[in-house]
């Protein structure tokens, strides 16, 4: 569980995030959306302590972020950043490093860490290529490995910055299904995404950000009307026997 109270953060003198108050509850998938430069990524970085707060409070499972060491933070929140160079490391080894925060110096992975990691790899469907190098894997496969790493980290909250970027449509759905599965285990899953349709389809709650502020927060069918002004597009909600769909089109002004 994560609580943000009046969080402000910025670069140099420029404030990027203005008084953000949000709560991420276990068992829910949250989709954070907003135009480029609205502060979505900075928000995730602030929650993990990568970006300093200028004011406000971040509570991770009730503990103040400022009082936590990086290890203690990593025991509460798993974070998968956006742009990652593809490391030259085997998939299994990468997932095993999810256990890093649960060890103290000198860090030697134990049998139970192996076991937890193996189960995580199986759960995300990455066990079959655990021995392969990350550089040989497809984007979708890599994302499964990173998700296994986050699962092995055994935190109550998982933050992901654009986990579906550069993936084909099938892999995107798979990643979102895995995110739903993680929420089903009782984790709070927070995703920053650009793909609005994906967010509205899969998220339990949607956070709409614009200019460093939260414009709306709630279930998809409540917040979708405000996307019109945020992104400058027309949004249409289509209710059909197969479910609810959202369609986006360029704005027709006048």
């Amino acid at each position, binding site marked *: 569980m994560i609580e943000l109270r009046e969080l402000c953060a910025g670069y140099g003198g420029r404030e990027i995030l203005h008084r953000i108050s949000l709560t991420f509850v276990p068992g829910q998938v949250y989709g954070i959306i907003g135009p480029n430069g609205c502060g979505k990524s900075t928000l995730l*970085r602030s929650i*993990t*302590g*990568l970006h300093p707060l200028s004011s406000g409070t971040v509570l991770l499972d009730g503990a103040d972020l400022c009082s936590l*060491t*990086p*290890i203690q*933070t*990593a*025991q509460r*929140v*798993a*974070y*998968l*950043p956006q742009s*990652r*160079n*593809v*490391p*030259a*490391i*085997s998939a*299994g*080894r*990468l*997932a*095993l*490093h*999810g256990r*890093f*925060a649960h060890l103290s*110096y*000198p*860090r030697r*992975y134990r*049998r139970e860490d*192996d*076991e937890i*990691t*193996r189960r995580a*790899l*199986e759960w995300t469907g990455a*066990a*079959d290529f*655990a*021995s*392969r*190098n990350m*550089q040989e894997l497809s984007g979708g496969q890599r994302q499964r490995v990173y998700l296994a*790493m986050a699962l092995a*980290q055994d935190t109550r909250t998982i933050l992901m910055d654009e986990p579906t970027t550069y993936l084909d449509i099938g892999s995107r759905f798979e990643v979102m299904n895995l995110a739903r599965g993680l929420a089903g285990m009782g984790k709070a899953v927070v995703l920053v995404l650009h793909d609005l349709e994906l967010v509205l389809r899969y998220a339990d709650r949607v956070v709409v950000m614009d200019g460093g502020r939260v414009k709306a927060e709630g279930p998809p069918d409540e917040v979708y009307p405000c996307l019109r002004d945020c992104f400058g597009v027309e949004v249409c909600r289509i209710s059909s026997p197969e479910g609810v769909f959202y369609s986006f089109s360029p704005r027709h002004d006048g």
Partner: protein
Amino acid sequence: MKCSVTSCMGTDKRPALALAGLACLAAALLSVCLGAAKISPAELLAALFNGGQTPAAGIVRYVRLPRTAACLAAGAALAVSGAIIQSVLANPLASPNIIGVNAGAGLMVGLCCAFLPTMGRGLSGAAFLGAMAAVLLVLGIARRIGASRMTVILAGVAVNAFLNAGTDAVVTLFPDAGIGSADFRVGGFSAVPAGRLWPAALLILMGVALSFTLANELDLLALGEDTAHGLGLSVRRMQFLLLGIAAVLAGATVSFAGQLGFVGLIVPHLARRLVGSGNGILLPMCALSGAALVTLCDLAARLLFAPYELPVGILLSLIGGPFFLMLLVRQRGGRLHD
């Protein structure tokens, strides 16, 4: 799929490590036994365990053993230092001699020899300070201007040139300081003072051992700073600590072996091709193969042109240069390191 994650990591790398260990041992034995005077295995055993007073025993104890120890320590230290620097700076071109770490140590050693010629034991400490100053300078500059992989190297090359110019100035102005010799400038073991060797070797032993315990931390840094932080690593502190260890290793080496280059660049690449980039096995592999390579090259440098002796740094570059180019060509468009 009933295998543990660690055993699932592809082919077993332990045979390669064992082979490097054997090579290291063989190189050490050859280095002790061969030379201007040949020592038979029996004489060697007698010298080591019976404390004999024969000329052979004297040669072993006062010439060959210190020299072999110096080769092993220097090779292991430079290779591990190079592997650490390449990982931390996420740059395959980085190595102690290219980004000015050796040069910083060299300048300090030069200054000490010129102005404080009596300081003997403190020399490796001074060399470490010089190496550390160079590391911090490069890291600081890279962070200030946004550390892209290329700027780190450019900053390092500039620092390297600057520090080497400083050493050249000292050499020119104080020709009696004893650092103008080819042995110091390109690295060599023909005149390693025992007073400098043992404190430095102790530092190297500790540094290498410490680096082995931080292999997982190095792996995490290679995943990128943000991912490493997300997994619970104090990124800045760990970078500082690891580069500090790299500076200790390079500095201690320079204090007795001079500015031995190239080992720190090629051995990590070679080892990576043999055992992959997992630092848990890469660092020991670097230490063993670095030690073996330097010892064998030093042996060759002593024997090939006897009674003359080539500084080993020259031979290392003569062999290592073409060998490294061959690696690059055979890699063809691929990358040696990500």
